[in-house]
């Protein structure tokens, strides 16, 4: 109960009462257990036949490690099918009841594979007493038997030519894991239905290209994803927005990336750090006219830094090769906005001929109080 929620229909009773059988309130749920995603059914019902109350519990159980390891010995073609029928039992959507494996499937699995476990000193799972499962099949309505063509390996596994299943991440890793080396054959990304990262052998799924998350080294899967015009800039999600919209205080990219990193500090020259704003992707100094201390706080906060800041107004002659200016717009105090860039405009003269220079402090972190001394 500390890690899972109970279905709504059970909220009238104490959800953590162990005497309150969850079997009475469980419903069909989609299979999420990675091992068993290739079954001829998609819905399961808990608790399962090994006593696990949730799929999460099943996924980290001893049995969910044991069965796939055992499959690799090739002891029984339908072992993984059997394992999944007890780890994620099929759910009948009409009755919300579990459909168990047939007794013959259980007996065959145990008969062929139990002895192999014995060799390495392990025991067949105690909860799999085959007599609890029905003998009668009746077209897979009462109990389950596998079809001829059932897949032995889970989707996260690769099936060796020999029939053994090995973890998919071990395929093409330069080391043979199948006894026939078949996991190291046809290792091109294309042959595996994947995309090869430029300048590296890494393969990624096609859905990961241009999705806004870099997956290849150097983020190569996120390059050349958009073709913006000259007067446009590319958002992080590869949309195009007009250049003039960049850092104007209004959100234009769907992912809001046009308003990220709009405030920064210039490089440290002669120990002065000038406040910079990146309107239309051009860097501007900020004119000191009408500047107030609370604006320094805002600028530091936007850069992820703390306060209290030290503000200096630096005359223009001290920074001869300065960038362009941005000024506070008139009546900026009345503007309801949360970013500094929204308060600034270009094209006005800077009467004070001074630029804003800031020193922000980094918020303190990671310190533990010193241990108290006690006389012994």
């Amino acid at each position: 109960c500390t890690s899972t929620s109970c279905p709504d229909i059970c909220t009238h009773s104490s959800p953590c009462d162990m005497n309150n059988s969850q079997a009475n309130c469980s419903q069909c749920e989609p299979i999420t257990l990675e091992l068993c995603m290739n079954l001829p059914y998609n819905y399961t019902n808990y608790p399962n036949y090994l006593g696990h109350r949730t799929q999460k519990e099943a996924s980290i159980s001893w049995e969910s490690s044991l069965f796939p390891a055992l499959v690799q010995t090739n002891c029984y073609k339908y072992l993984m099918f059997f394992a999944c029928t007890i780890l994620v039992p099929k759910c009948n959507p009409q009755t919300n009841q579990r459909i168990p494996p047939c007794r013959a499937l259980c007996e065959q699995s145990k008969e062929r594979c139990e002895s192999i476990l014995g060799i390495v000193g392990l025991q067949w799972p105690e909860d799999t007493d085959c007599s609890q499962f029905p003998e009668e099949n009746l077209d897979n309505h009462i109990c389950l038997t596998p079809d001829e063509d059932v897949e032995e390996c889970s989707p996260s596994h690769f099936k060796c030519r020999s029939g053994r299943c090995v973890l998919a991440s071990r395929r093409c890793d330069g080391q043979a894991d199948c006894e026939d080396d078949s996991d190291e054959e046809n290792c091109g990304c294309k042959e595996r239905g994947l995309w090869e990262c430029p300048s590296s052998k890494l393969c990624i799924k096609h859905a990961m290209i241009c999705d806004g998350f870099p997956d290849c080294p150097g983020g190569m899967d996120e390059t050349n994803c958009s073709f913006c015009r000259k007067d446009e800039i590319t958002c992080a999600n590869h949309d195009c927005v007009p250049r003039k919209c960049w850092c104007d205080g209004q959100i234009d990219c769907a992912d809001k990336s046009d308003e990220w990193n709009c405030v920064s500090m210039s490089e440290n020259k002669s120990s002065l750090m000038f406040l910079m704003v990146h309107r239309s992707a051009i860097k501007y100094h900020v004119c000191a006219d009408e500047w107030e201390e609370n604006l320094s706080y805002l600028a530091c906060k936007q850069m992820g830094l703390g306060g209290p800041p030290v503000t200096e107004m630096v005359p223009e002659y001290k920074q001869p090769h300065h960038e362009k200016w941005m000024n506070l717009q008139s009546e900026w105090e009345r503007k309801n906005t949360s970013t500094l860039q929204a308060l600034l405009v270009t094209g006005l003269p800077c009467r004070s001929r001074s630029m804003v220079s800031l020193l922000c402090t980094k918020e303190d972190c990671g310190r533990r109080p010193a241990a108290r001394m006690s006389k012994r």
Partner: protein
Amino acid sequence: ILGGRTSRPGRWPWQCSLQSEPSGHICGCVLIAKRWVLTVAHCFEGRENPAVWKVVFGINNLDHPSVFMQTRMVKTIILHPRYNRAVVDYDISIVELNADINETSYVRPVCLPSREQRVEPDTYCYITGWGHMGNKMPFKLQEGEVRIISLEHCQAYFDMKTITTRMLCAGYESGTVDSCMGDSGGPLVCEQPAGRWTLFGLTSWGSVCFSKVLGPGVYSNVSHFIEWIERQIYIHTFLL
């Protein structure tokens, strides 16, 4: 925590407890700024409504509220959009509190690593939490020292799961010191120069920690998510 010890009050001032009625403590969490907390995404499975959660700081004994304790409600829960429930990848979430915490010696944020900052294998770090101890659930916060394990070495323990670069492994082959159920979302911190503690991992998953199957614990690799964390905090502070 298995194989750990009871922690001194205030020793881990960034540790928090994510609680929901009627159960109380559900997951651990970590204070990273006055209004922001990190935890793992799987803590919110089936309970994504912020209104059902509260976050407790400055507490050592869950059964005895202390004068140093601060409680905040949850304003926003931000789950990583790539969180995959089936394979427990991208297991991270950010929690926005309804109000700033008051920074005291018992409630302080931890440092986040920089984007490039990685923790090397064989570094010794600490995990903390109120999770299962193997024989009981503790009332007092537990701490344990664990060793960082390389991803390649870690993969060897988990035949059935892919260890991705979004994960970090720490612990021991024998499982002597490990995180356990209820520690999820809590910190894995390593001491950096000048005595600063930096958050490199969030307790995520592992083998059944008090079973026969042993091995290291698997943590969400915070370094991998720094950019995403910074972006989300910026967006929710300034742009929403």
